[in-house]
């Protein structure tokens, strides 16, 4: 049996609509198709031992997904990415496979890119106003928590943010907290809808770009 292994993969294009649960199932079948045998848990209802680090919400893309798994035999890690990618649905691409040296809990920050689309408004003005908005010391929004609706300040979960105007859109790059607390980047748009509706985009979408640890070193 193999040691715990880690996969880094992309989920882009049409694959962004595959839900977290469906992705687990898709992964399982992709391993089967590629001829790798996942290790299953013991017990009455065995399931493959795979864990995707930070569930991605439906509609969001990522270039830095992380999944841990175990195989029944030791694979050739160099050939695994290409072989597994060939067995994936459109939009899922395996970047690398390795034996991880760090725990998932050490993953602290995520760099994300967002596109805020403005159909009728001036992108330059919006970019400037957005920068002002996210520079505030507190951004308190109402959101669903485990105990019903509650007030949360999302500002501490945003480490840095940059707003660049484009054609009918503002391009955002931000570093946001990945765990404890987890900030769903969708809340950046939600904050505007709640607090400054005139800045809220007509449509927003996000892509995860890179994973970092607490010291802002790239996490692997």
């Amino acid at each position, binding site marked *: 049996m193999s040691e715990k292994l880690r996969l880094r993969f992309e989920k882009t*294009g*049409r*694959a962004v*609509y*595959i*839900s977290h649960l*469906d*992705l687990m*199932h*898709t992964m*399982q*079948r*992709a*391993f*089967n*198709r590629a*001829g790798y*045998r996942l290790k*299953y848990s013991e017990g009455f209802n*065995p399931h493959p031992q795979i864990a995707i680090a930070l569930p991605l919400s*439906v*509609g969001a893309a990522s270039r830095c997904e992380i999944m841990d798994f175990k195989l029944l035999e030791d694979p050739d890690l160099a050939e695994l990415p290409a072989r597994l990618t060939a*067995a*994936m*649905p*459109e*939009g899922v691409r395996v970047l690398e496979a390795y034996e991880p040296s760090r725990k998932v809990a050490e993953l602290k920050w995520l760099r994300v890119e967002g596109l805020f689309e403005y159909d009728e408004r001036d992108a330059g003005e919006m970019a400037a106003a957005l920068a002002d908005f996210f520079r505030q010391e507190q951004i308190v929004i109402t959101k669903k928590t485990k105990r019903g609706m509650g007030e949360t300040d999302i500002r501490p979960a945003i480490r840095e943010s940059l707003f660049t105007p484009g054609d009918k859109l503002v391009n955002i790059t931000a570093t946001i907290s990945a765990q404890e607390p987890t900030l769903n980047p969708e809340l950046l748009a939600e904050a505007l809808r709640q607090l400054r509706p005139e800045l809220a985009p*007509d*449509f927003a*979408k996000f892509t995860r770009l890179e994973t970092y640890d607490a010291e802002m070193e790239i996490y692997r």
Partner: protein
Amino acid sequence: MDKRLERILPRVQKPARYTGGEYNQIIKDKEQVELRLAFCFPDTYEIGMSNLGMSILYHTMNSLPFLWCERVYAPWGDMYEEMKKAGIPLYALESGDPVSQFDSLAFSIGYEMAYTTVLDMLDMAGIPLRSADRPGLLPLIWAGGTAAVNAEPMAPFMDLFVVGEGEEVDNEVMTLLRDAKRGGWSKQEFLVKAAQIQGVYVPSLYEVQYHEDGTIAAVTPRDGAPARVTKRIISDLDKVPFPTAPIVPSTEVVHDRVSLELFRGCPRGCRFCQAGHVYRPLRAKKPETLIRQGIESLENTGHEDVTLLSLSTSDYRQLPALCDGLLEYCEPRSIGLSLPSLRADNFSMEIMQRLQKVRKSGLTFAVEGGSQRLRDAVNKNVTEEDVLHTCSIAFAGGWNTVKLYYMLGLPTETDEDILGIAEMANQILHCWRVNAKNKNRGVKITVSTSCFIPKPQSPFQWEAQISLEEYLRRVNLLRSAITARNVTYNWHDAETSLIEAVLSKGDRRVADAIEEVWRQGGRLDAWTDYFSFQRWMDAFKTCGVDVDFYAHREAGKDEILPWDHIDVGVRKAHLWHEREMCYKSKLSPDCRHQCSACGAAKLLEGGIKCDE
């Protein structure tokens, strides 16, 4: 991806069913193909992606190098609303291109309640509903599937139907369409030529005349179309292509597994059963073929379940050899093998125990009739002893749920027959008490009834359906007879069955009502979420469709039935004989014991014999 689509997808339920991009989808270069075909399934993605016929034909049609066949399903209500609001027309999953740009739309219609969805999909694609309102050759709108055995209710909407199995005829039709497109033929020229292909029914080439009493006086073909359209079949199933690299959905669907088709046709001849008659003659695949195709499919899909499909799986002669071969591959890989339609009468202990090693599910019996007399009358060859014997083995082996399915309203049914249903449930309960190893887990027996629907091309095609009131009376009779705590009784409402009876036995005059229901908002009628009985009844009234005439009237022996010009192989005289046997409460032999010369064997080619 279309920008408008990108904005609505995050808002709808299960968006992955609207995007395509699944593993094994077929992508071609649209500039390089001559024909683009939208293969439409008039129900949701989850249902359509579970349909083996659709999967087979997607691959056989895509084997034509000049054609790209893409999938199209009906969006669920939320997506439908969003698409309307955003002005997004119906699009195909592989390319995302609007269906209106395609050369042809082919519908796979398996059940009558899908009719309104067919119209809705045409409308969402911006295509006129009626064949007569589409003067050009393209887009060619056609359909196949079980609905083609009585194509009349949908006849005005379709340019042509294919009757029977599509693996060959679909490709012939598409090849002819390519020639027509190249040669710049008119639609009329094309249809006249297409009607010469065996299995092709072009409704516009048949004129229907009616008697004063509403029955059919004559159906007259023109332009050389055959007087009767003979169904197409594949004589040798071992040689026909079977897709061993089917598309693997990236989201959950109804049957998320590899399906293997053991045989086509059914040796049983249950008299209420349309499928058992229209899929004849009986042809089986060799176990070697199935094992090879099963293993290849599992390797190409990564599925963890394989299921054996057929009308009566346990009638497959080499079932033990097939199971052995598959289990040899499946067991070490924890792949589940399931047999969905095992019969009570030859459920073998051996097979059950072997499957038990892999997976265990509930026992299901389609008993259909409540007494032996009635079961003989409908030729349902299941005895109480068979059911009890199977149950005793199953209970001893640890099974503890049993589902029993019945129909109410079968020809010749009496109240005594109905009370027999409750009696059998009690017997099974008793059987459990005697045989169960571990009684702590309890037992669950479920009795379900549905209302009998007389179906075209079956021995009961002349029958009348019982009224809604009568069905309810029979339900209440049974309800008061079922008293045991472990026995649950579920009855399906008869309203859907009534609409189905009108649609399945309908003629061309019913088409107006189907269109009217769609105009009043009807779509996805197979779903209780969307089905409206009132909407159908109103439409029948508006369009002058007499429900009693179609559903509750017994047809005469010599009456021309709306589907008589479609020849599915089985002779009308055979069906009539079977019906007469019903009224004598007499069984007919199973094909395996004695061939009753039903007529379907005439379809076989190449010296192949029925059930060889």
